[in-house]
């Protein structure tokens, strides 16, 4: 059964290995000069000297100046996001759907192997392969990007850091969980729908939906958010009229953290009447400036600090793996029930 699984899966395996090799070579070759820039920047010892913010900023600007690096960084993240999706569509969806569509199940399920064992070996073996190959992709790309990720975490507010939604599932171990999930999703869609192309379509749509739902509704609450209030600086202040007061917000930056909720307060009173006339903000006139300063305006932030990166990765990986197992359970139920 193991040998049969490999034989039927050969083409997809070679494609994956070729892609992995291409990525590995590209990123291996470009890493050394990135490392050099990083060690030259002195960020490694910045915490002792307390100048992380400026060193990180200058390092990142230096990297950005080179045309290739930002592109490679983006490509790396996109690849790691895409690999689970592709696995779901091309490994998962055809697994059972193909057998049903081509009606070869009438051959496969009348040998001396029970349907349960047939499915268990296929899902187990290919699921593990999916996780392994995605893990390797993520390993290479995360390792390549680690100087940049470290810089972003330590101090630079200019760059999105690895905690943020756009990047979170592009590095680390979470892609492994997503690979298992996408594979199981594809296999289940194939088992329920019975045709390969519709199953591929359903898989990609649901996977994309999950990638949108996770950062917006689930990840913020995986660990109870940290809260803090920060003062709104005059230079960053913004307001909108609410009733007869003003809702004042500003810009917030916490190094390496993911701020997913910023709420300002509504202020009322005489100072507000003055500010309403300040069309260029608190810095328009000295009167505006003092009116603003008298408010001691603050914002409430809900965020996940940088230190929670690995715990969040672990929890999300566990959730996706649990989803994968649940989907696999549906697969087994469907295969055993539908046709006897």
């Amino acid at each position, binding site marked *: 059964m193991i040998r049969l699984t490999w*034989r039927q899966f050969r083409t997809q395996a070679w494609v994956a290995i070729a892609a992995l090799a291409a990525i590995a070579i590209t990123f291996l070759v470009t890493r050394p000069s990135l490392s050099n820039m990083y060690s030259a920047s002195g960020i490694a010892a910045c915490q002792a000297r307390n100048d992380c913010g400026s060193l990180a900023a200058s390092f990142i600007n230096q990297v950005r100046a080179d045309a290739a690096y930002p592109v490679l960084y983006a490509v790396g993240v996109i690849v790691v996001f895409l690999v689970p999706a592709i696995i779901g569509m091309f490994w998962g969806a055809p697994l059972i759907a193909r057998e049903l569509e081509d009606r070869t199940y009438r051959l496969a399920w009348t040998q001396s192997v029970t349907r349960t064992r047939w499915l268990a070996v296929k899902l187990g073996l290919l699921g593990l392969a999916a996780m392994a190959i995605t893990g390797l992709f993520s390993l290479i790309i995360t390792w390549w990007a680690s100087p940049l990720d470290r810089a972003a975490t330590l101090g630079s507010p200019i760059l999105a850091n690895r905690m943020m939604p756009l990047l979170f599932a592009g590095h680390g171990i979470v892609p492994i969980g997503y690979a298992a999930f996408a594979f199981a999703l594809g296999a289940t869609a194939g088992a329920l729908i019975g045709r390969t192309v519709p199953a591929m379509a359903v898989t990609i749509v649901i996977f994309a939906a999950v990638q949108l739902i996770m950062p917006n509704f689930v990840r913020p609450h995986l660990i109870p958010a940290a809260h803090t209030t920060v003062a709104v600086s005059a230079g960053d202040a913004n307001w909108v009229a609410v009733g007869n007061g003003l809702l004042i917000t500003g810009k917030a930056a916490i190094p390496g953290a993911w701020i997913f909720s910023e709420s300002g307060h509504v202020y009322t009173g005489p100072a507000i009447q003055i500010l309403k006339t300040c069309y260029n903000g608190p810095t328009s006139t000295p009167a505006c400036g003092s009116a603003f300063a008298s408010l001691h305006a603050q914002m409430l932030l809900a965020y996940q600090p940088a230190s929670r990166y690995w715990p969040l990765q672990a929890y999300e990986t566990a959730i996706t793996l649990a989803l994968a197992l649940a989907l696999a359970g549906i697969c087994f139920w469907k295969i055993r029930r539908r*046709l006897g």
Partner: protein
Amino acid sequence: MVSAVIETSGLGKAYRRTWALRDCTLAIPEGHVVGLVGPNGAGKTTLLSLAVGLLAPTCGTIEVLGEHPAVGPAQLAQVGFVAQDPPVYARMTVADHLRLGAWLNPGWDGELARQRTGQLGLDPRQRAGSLSGGQRAQLALILALAKRPGLLILDEPVASLDPLARREFLRGLMEAVAERGLSVVLSSHLVGDLERVCDYLIVLVASRVRVAGEVSALLASHRRLSGPRRDPATLPAGQEVIEESHTDKQTVLLIRTGEPVHDPAWTVTPVSLEDLVLAYMSQANGTRARRPQLGVVS
């Protein structure tokens, strides 16, 4: 007492609101080549799929070789199946399919598989998708035979083959039966194929079994009676009319009976297997109720 290879009791299978098979009660004895005949859509594929565990019954029971179908590896190993329009993996070669057989069947006889493949002139390196219909059927038969089953089930194995390929397939099948005393159940909508090879017949029409038994017993118990025009109701109790036709002066009946016919008014002739099957098929369609006028109406 001969043991049954397939035993069903009140077996039925329904899809949404239509019954593909109902009230099916059979005891198919071992050591026979059993023909399952009936028109397309009668339920033959349904019955065979139930026997190999690809479908689950809606009601009733079925036991194959004394066990629930596909209940475990040992039972699966004992039953070989050749499905309709035999399925093959188009992109895998003939040799790959034989390897598949070896990997998935502990009882695999590689020597037999190689021998038959060579005998039939199948190129091991050819992709199964480019085989002709006859070659594909032969490959499926090799896969089913080389696992050394005690029971072989074939669903319309020769329906889409040309006459030569058909004869070759049946020859290969009968050789395997002669070598190993295999029990075989094969379905077809063509009676001619079955006459040569079957010694037990099941007629399935419109999802119900109409008649089942050893071919020699069936032929011995059915007769064609022709004579002057007569109402079939006047026949003695032991003679059941399966098919009737009348002209203004003549009546021809196909009857089933346990005793010889003594009435001198009848000319009694034996019935061929094909006529027997056709009679049961038309009985099932209710055409017996009609009395078509044949010949010249004066």
